[in-house]
């Protein structure tokens, strides 16, 4: 069998497996479509919005949803639907960059710890323990406050509180593989340790970590929205889901439900999509872990 036909048959096998899983679990397909829709809104949402998300129109403030304003208007008369769609880009960007940053740093640190072991492993392990001893949301709060009240710092804070999970995960996964035959083989071929970790071990661990990423994305979104809800990071009038809920909170006791509900539903659906996608990915990659 030539290499090419071997590869293509292998891919067909994976494709069939993916199709099989999707058919037996249509929820994953729905979640994938949902995630794609979210990305589409994030990219093109600002082009689709009916109104300027920052333009206030006080005479029509606090109006319930109507044919003109599908999600109603807020306390300054801004169109909530427009703000909601605009906010998708910022919220997804925060979550994706935080998780990406956390993943990149965590995988490399954890990978080296699992591969090298010894003193490095012990010290990093201790550092991770300290990080885990914090109530993580509180740590994120303190970090944003200390680093400065900016969006970039929400990303950094969310990345740091995700870091322990990635370090531990990558460490454990690399540790069980470090003495495998194919790792030995690459070393015997003259690969340096650096190259073994970065080009042999980490790519092998990647599929398992992809599941972790997808599951963490939802958590990252909730964390970032929580931070902006308590007044950290994003400043008004920037449209962002957490801050929209915070601004609407004042009007909930007088029955203005639409200010809170729509950004709340946006948050919930986004997290739901990524969580379901993570579950589905896990089913595809590792059928043993199904619950």
């Amino acid at each position, binding site marked *: 069998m030539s290499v090419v036909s071997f590869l293509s048959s292998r891919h067909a096998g994976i494709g069939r497996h993916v199709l099989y899983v999707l058919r037996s679990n249509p929820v994953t397909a729905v979640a994938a479509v949902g995630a794609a829709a979210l990305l589409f809104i994030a990219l093109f949402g600002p082009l689709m919005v009916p109104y300027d998300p920052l333009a206030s129109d006080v005479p029509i403030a606090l109006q319930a949803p109507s044919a003109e304003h599908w999600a109603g208007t807020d306390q300054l008369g801004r169109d909530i639907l427009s703000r909601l769609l605009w906010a998708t880009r910022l919220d997804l960007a925060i979550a994706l960059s935080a998780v990406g940053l956390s993943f990149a740093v965590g995988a490399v640190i954890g990978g080296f710890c699992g591969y090298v072991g010894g003193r490095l492993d012990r010290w990093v392990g*201790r*550092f991770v*323990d*300290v990080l885990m*001893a*914090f*109530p*993580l*949301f*509180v*740590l994120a*709060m*303190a*970090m944003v*406050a*200390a*680093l*400065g009240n900016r969006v970039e710092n929400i990303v950094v804070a969310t990345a740091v509180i995700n870091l322990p999970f990635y370090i531990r995960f990558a460490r454990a996964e690399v540790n069980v593989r470090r003495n495998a035959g194919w790792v030995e083989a690459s070393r015997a071929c003259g690969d340096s340790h650096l190259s073994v970790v970065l080009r042999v071990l980490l790519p092998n661990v990647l599929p398992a970590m992809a599941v972790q990423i997808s599951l963490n994305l*939802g958590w990252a979104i*909730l964390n970032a*929205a*929580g931070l902006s*809800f*308590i*007044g*950290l990071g994003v400043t008004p009038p920037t449209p962002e889901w*957490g801050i929209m*809920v*915070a601004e*609407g*909170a004042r009007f*909930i*006791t*007088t*029955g203005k*439900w639409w200010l*809170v*509900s729509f*950004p*709340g539903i946006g*948050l*919930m*659906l986004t*997290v*739901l999509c990524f*969580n*379901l996608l993570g579950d589905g990915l896990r089913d595809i990659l590792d059928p043993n872990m199904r*619950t």
Partner: protein
Amino acid sequence: MLAGIVRRVGRRLLASLPALLGVVVVTFTLMRVLPGDPAVFFASGPSAGREEIEELRHSMGLDKPIPVQLVRYLGEIVRGDFGRSMTTGQRVVQDIRNRLPASLELTVTALFIALLLSLPLGMVAALRPGSMVDHAVRLLCTLGVCMPTFVSGLLLIYAFYYLLGWAPDPTARIDIFASPPPDITGFYLIDFAITGDSEGWWAAFRQLLLPAVTMALFVLAPLARMTRASMLAVLGSDFIRTAHAMGLSRFRVIVTYALRNALLPVLTIMGIVFSTMLGANVLVEKVFSWPGVASYALDALLASDYAPVQAFVLLMAAIFVLVNVIIDILYGIADPRVSVA
């Protein structure tokens, strides 16, 4: 047995000291980077002269290098001195002592509600896997983890305060027209119960219910999921089949034999659950204007007032360590196979 437990607890507490020290150092460094100069704040006013501010900086030790300040701070912590809050003007220890019961009452009630709901739900789902009930519980869990606490809290307020009018005004621990109970334990429900004031107890309970349910919903999912998974595993094991074969009643098998064994994994994740609840406290207290330690720390944080924030973070870490030790002991009691020595 008892000596074994004491030794085990002592060892666990000792082992957690480096982590706690790490927490103090990290928080201290973070807080020193915070913008804002406490000396300016403590000076007599905006018109205070440079000399006065310098004097204050010197007396507060702010002119020394950060490592020196850190050592000084550690010494103060050991003596139980956490400094003074700039926003309330009181000693931080005093402020926290006043506000901690509110937070603990909320968290413990929420945990209680969550266990009360999640254990039966997980059990029922495990008894009939694949049934409608199982799917309903899974749906509930999936949605539960997706809902941000601050949104579910606000929606509960909308439903139960605005629409139905069952819940009281979500502004504090007790109605502004009612008088708080005498300060015995600081836990309103216990204090009202001690003084025998059933009306006050009911008022405090109504006030507590909505925020507690909000927080319980947040941790319902992991608890119910874990109960279901471990119950399923236990129900499939040999000793359950034997118990059935011996003709024991279904109730006896499930509650006496299966549940006790299924609870162990649930106990293990309680530490994580409690930790997430401590974090969620910040959001829930903000939504319900609950006068607890988390909202105190948040106000201090937003005002660049770092003494309360440091004390708060250390307190949270200490509670977290303590809870884990307690879980460890409970685990040893629930499962005698775990060596206590």
